[in-house]
């Protein structure tokens, strides 16, 4: 990124003062290395978001920010409904409530190594992944609506998982305010056969070793012990969320002129929160969140079935489930007073600090677990929200490494077989239906997730708790 128009606030924070139509400053969290890697589109998009009506305090970009559509991926912005604030379909993204769920196994790496190949084969056979895959559940109309209201709670009621899981899922497993009646028949049709599927692209299920602990107290509270193994699942709301995003992006772009919103670019399509279309979107989007929560709950259950067959004594306990593509109503300290605002996190993870009332009691003293995904060969991380994270970016942190290279370029650099073999040499088993898909998701196509996490820690967005290294990766 060209740094000419940025002022450096600290080693990990850059600022763009409001100019022209910008209503608030833009703030980018990055060190010199990451800011140099960011494309100029991030600057354009983070400053465009700063122009939207009702934006509060600043438009933020996380350390893993890259070019998105409308909002940068890694973008965070809050809007006040009583000051003309907007909700944006592009500010949430097509994969509504895409997120990460990490499950503790209590097993050691040595125990996994003894059965690693059969485990990889069984997970690959059990969990539907990739283009065209279908789940074993077919949801017809009334069940679909119940799922869209109940989220992970609905899944537990259907026998997928345990009631104890729910306190470790955002919103207690069910997002309030969901409106299945605002989800189109096409979106529901697209989801009919996709419950309990991983999807494709950068989605995965990984078996990971807890390789390093940084904050022993928080790690102990989270149940993370060095040398033990966790299962992490990265996926979202599947076809239903994609269709909701598709339809409202179009509808908001068409409606914007009549709603008096002058968009710097149509891709920033949005609508006032207090408008018919804004309220319709919020109801549909919240139903999409529940779809994602139910989906990860089902996949978590399928993983438990596989582990139960191979490791009968293992008990898989949910560490946490957190999304990184959402718009949520939250109360934050802004200008010396508490205000209820609509926080968009597009490729950014919520990171509530210690003491937050929405956290379960067992986690409250330590802050919310923030789950950061890697990319097959690279580490993933568990972080925790800090007391400072609210002031930094409305309690938000990064969500992953962020791509350094397009899929297009990745295909010119790598072949899938080559990546699978290289990772096998490092003891990592990768299972995928698509060699080309593996090449597009090559670890080298991503930024250094360690650098992204370090900046998040140094900037006070979230603090490092543990590093996870992959042993098995089931690619979506």
């Amino acid at each position, binding site marked *: 990124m060209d740094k000419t128009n940025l002022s450096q606030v600290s080693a990990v924070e850059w600022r763009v003062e409001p100019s022209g139509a910008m209503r608030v400053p833009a703030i980018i969290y990055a060190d010199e290395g990451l800011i140099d890697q960011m494309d100029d589109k991030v600057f354009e998009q983070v400053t465009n978001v700063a122009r939207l009506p009702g934006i509060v305090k600043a438009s933020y970009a996380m350390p893993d920010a*890259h070019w998105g*559509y409308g909002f940068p991926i890694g973008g965070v912005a809050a809007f006040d409904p009583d000051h003309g604030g907007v909700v944006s379909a592009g500010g949430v993204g097509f994969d509504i409530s895409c997120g990460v769920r990490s499950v503790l196994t209590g097993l050691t790496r040595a125990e996994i190594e003894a059965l690693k190949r059969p485990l990889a084969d069984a997970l690959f056979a059990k969990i539907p992944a990739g*283009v*065209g895959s279908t789940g074993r559940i077919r949801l017809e109309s009334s069940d679909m609506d119940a799922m869209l209201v109940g989220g992970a709670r609905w899944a537990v009621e259907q026998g997928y998982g345990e009631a104890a899981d729910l306190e470790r899922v955002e919103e207690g497993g069910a997002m309030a305010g969901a409106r299945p009646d605002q989800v189109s028949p*096409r979106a529901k049709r697209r989801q009919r056969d996709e419950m309990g599927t991983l999807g494709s*692209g950068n989605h995965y299920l990984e078996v990971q070793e807890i390789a390093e602990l940084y904050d022993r107290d928080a790690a102990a509270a989270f149940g993370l012990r060095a040398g033990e193994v966790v299962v992490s699942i990265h996926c979202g709301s599947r076809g239903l969320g*994609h269709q909701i*995003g598709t339809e409202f992006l179009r509808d908001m772009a068409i409606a914007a002129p009549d709603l008096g919103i002058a968009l710097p*670019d149509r891709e920033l399509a949005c609508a006032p929160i207090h408008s018919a279309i804004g309220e319709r979107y919020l109801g549909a989007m919240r139903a999409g969140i529940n779809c994602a929560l139910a989906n990860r709950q089902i996949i978590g259950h399928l993983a438990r079935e596989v582990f139960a067959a191979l490791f009968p004594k293992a008990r898989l306990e949910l560490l946490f489930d957190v999304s990184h593509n959402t718009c949520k109503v939250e109360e934050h300290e802004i200008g010396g007073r508490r205000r209820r605002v609509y926080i968009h996190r597009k490729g950014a993870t919520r990171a509530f600090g210690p003491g937050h009332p929405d956290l379960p009691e067992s986690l409250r003293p330590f802050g919310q677990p923030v789950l950061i995904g890697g990319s097959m060969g690279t580490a993933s991380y568990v972080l925790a929200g800090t007391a400072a994270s609210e002031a930094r970016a409305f309690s938000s942190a990064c969500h992953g490494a962020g791509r350094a290279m*397009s899929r297009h370029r990745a295909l010119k650099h790598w072949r899938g077989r080559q990546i699978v073999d290289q990772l096998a040499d490092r003891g990592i088993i990768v299972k995928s239906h698509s060699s080309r898909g593996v090449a597009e998701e090559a670890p080298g196509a991503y930024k250094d997730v360690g650098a992204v996490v370090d900046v998040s820690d140094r900037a006070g967005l979230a603090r490092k708790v543990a590093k996870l290294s992959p042993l098995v990766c089931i690619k979506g």
Partner: protein
Amino acid sequence: MTARSASRAADRTATRRNGWELFPHRADTGVRGFGPDKNTAFEQVATALTAVITDPQWVMPHLAVEITCEAPDLELLLVEWLNALVYEMATRRMLFSRFAVRIEGRHLHGRAWGEPVDVARHEPAAEVKGATLTALEVSRMADGPWIAQCVVDV
């Protein structure tokens, strides 16, 4: 200019008259079609959409699906067309490799030929979640051909 680069340049010129290509976007992928008229450009960009997922040459055009859509302007009509294809691919578990498009004002009448996804043969790399309004353009280039393009979310 070497023989190989001259050949590439000739291919590119031919593509720009009538053909398709993918263009890079950091997180996702851009799809672009060219043609002597907007119908052809829309047909070509649909082939580019398939190329995001698999090699279009691997997809047999055995079954036809009818698609109609409408939008207030040509650019949004492109988004509608691509999203209609995404929907048909997702719900029918199909891939398409041949397309016919007729645009009349705000309306598009299309037909897509393809076959059910065969994971072993098609090795689909990634599903497309939807067409975005990013880098969205439908226009006639100065030297004549039409161009239709946007970024798709993968």
